[in-house]
């Protein structure tokens, strides 16, 4: 379904130079792929490229990003727009700032439908309430009318998921979706994502710096380091038997920290 070949991204404004240097990734429908790496390793840039959110005048992109047989890099802005939100949903790291502070939650969730399909306001509302129930937002009728600042961080992230999921996209890109949340909320959100994947068959491209988080949701994992993928494979295999030096350190860091915690 998603096939990334030799993707290269470099910034024009001389900020960092090359952000992603020739990576390959492959996902089938229903797959859950974790993209792990430290900040600045190019994982977010990769995600933004797939989502078509990279500002074109700021970055040079080469290679191929095939989504359902279509090269996203060759799409025009309008062609890309037809996919954004409808087939590809994105959830960002900061639920605090990722929602428009002046728009009611319900309307933000519906917006994806409004942009892509011709449904009546009543139908849109019904769809929004349904997806809100699905993602576990309390009292959908009430929450529908609330503003983002009236929700907790976890609820906001659920609202973000609802807004991305209302159109039942084929691919959800999650850019550190739980990093800004408390540990307990984090677990709930991860469970929710897992449920969406298992029940509805949506593919997840999960970006995180935290190997443990990725392990809980993703079956496959790719480790990025300095713009390159240094190791990829089944999550358990990579986790139990890391090959690359960087992965080893990453795994080690996680396990020692856990031991220290206990």
């Amino acid at each position, binding site marked *: 379904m998603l096939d990334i070949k030799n993707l290269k991204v470099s910034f024009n404004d001389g900020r960092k130079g090359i952000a992603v240097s020739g990576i390959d990734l492959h996902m089938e429908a229903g797959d859950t792929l974790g993209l792990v790496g430290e900040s600045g390793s190019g994982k977010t840039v990769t995600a933004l490229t797939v989502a078509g959110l990279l500002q074109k005048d700021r970055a040079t992109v080469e290679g191929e990003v095939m989504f359902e047989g279509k090269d996203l890099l060759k799409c025009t802005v309008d062609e890309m727009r037809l996919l*954004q939100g409808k087939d590809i949903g994105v959830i960002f790291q900061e639920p605090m700032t*990722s929602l*428009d*502070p002046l728009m009611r939650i319900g309307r933000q969730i519906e917006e994806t439908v409004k942009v892509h399909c011709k449904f009546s306001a009543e139908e849109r509302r019904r769809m929004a309430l349904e997806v809100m129930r699905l993602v576990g937002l309390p009292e959908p009728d009430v929450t529908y009318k609330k503003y983002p600042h009236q929700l907790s961080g976890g609820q906001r992230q659920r609202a973000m998921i609802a807004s991305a999921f209302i159109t039942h996209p084929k691919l959800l890109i999650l850019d550190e979706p739980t990093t800004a949340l408390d540990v307990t909320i984090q677990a709930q959100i991860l469970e929710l994502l897992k449920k969406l994947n298992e029940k509805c068959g949506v593919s997840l491209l999960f970006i995180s710096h935290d190997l443990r988080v990725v392990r809980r949701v993703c079956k496959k994992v790719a480790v990025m380091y300095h713009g390159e993928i240094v190791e990829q494979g089944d999550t358990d295999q990579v986790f139990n038997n890391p090959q690359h030096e960087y992965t080893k350190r990453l795994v080690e860091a996680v396990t020692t920290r856990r031991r220290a915690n206990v």
Partner: protein
Amino acid sequence: MRYVLKKACVFVATLLVISVFVFLAFQIIPGDPTTRMLGTQATPEKVEALREELGLNAPPVLRYFRWLKGFVTGDFGMSYSYNMPVNELLSGKLGITAALTVLSFIMVVLISFPLGILLARFAHSLTDRLFMLFNQIVMSIPPFFVGIIFTYIFGLVLKLFTPGEFIHHADDSAGFWGYLFFPALAIALPKSAMVVKILRSSMVSQLQEDYVRTAFSRGNSHWRVLRMHVLRNAIIPVVTFLAVTLVDIFAASIIIEQVFAIPGLGRLLLGSITGRDLPVVQTIIMIIAVIVITVNFIADISYKYIDPRIRFR
């Protein structure tokens, strides 16, 4: 609601304090009004009689309250130079200035909003940069100079209107607004440039926000993101700036009335200042103060109501 109440109290208190200042300011002005009304040759008895009649012999505190009561009830006293009640002098003039101000304000909104949005859409492009430089130049032209240029081009050369021949609303409504068009535009141009600058920079800074990225990720078109998300957020600081602009426009219309010979509040104020007709000056100043404070009061309230983050706290 408590917020509004609190603001309303501050509003009234501010007005009272300013009224005290205005009253005091006109007490320290040298020169007796009786000399002005009766001339320097008047007999002391006549002067004394007039002082008594005008209530000038009462203690200052009492005079202040008399004056304040008069102001509130619309009794502004007598003009020295016209020898008629100030409120008769004012009637009609206030309307003309208000019409000029409102017309100009509408122009500012109509000019600056589309331009600001358009510039934000193409921010940092060459066109944007060049236009912003042009914008800065327009901003720097004093409104009265714009008025003079307009008078020359549209009045004297193109003869679209006759400078100096003001048309009263009662005589010809269309002609009235037609005559006000160029003065209003003269005020509106530099002010619009200012609002364009602020709206553009507010939108450009909002464009950096995370929720804009979210909006794009939903497949919104660029224009829809600007209209539905960015503009609504960017407008909050601009709305309050518009209040300041409204007051500025009002001040500018007082000056522009000189250029276009519009018989409004500004001409009366200026004439009264040069003629030292103090009751008129005092009344106009107090009216201006009430307008300025009211506009700011409304801006303060609307500022809180426009933003749900503050509304629902």
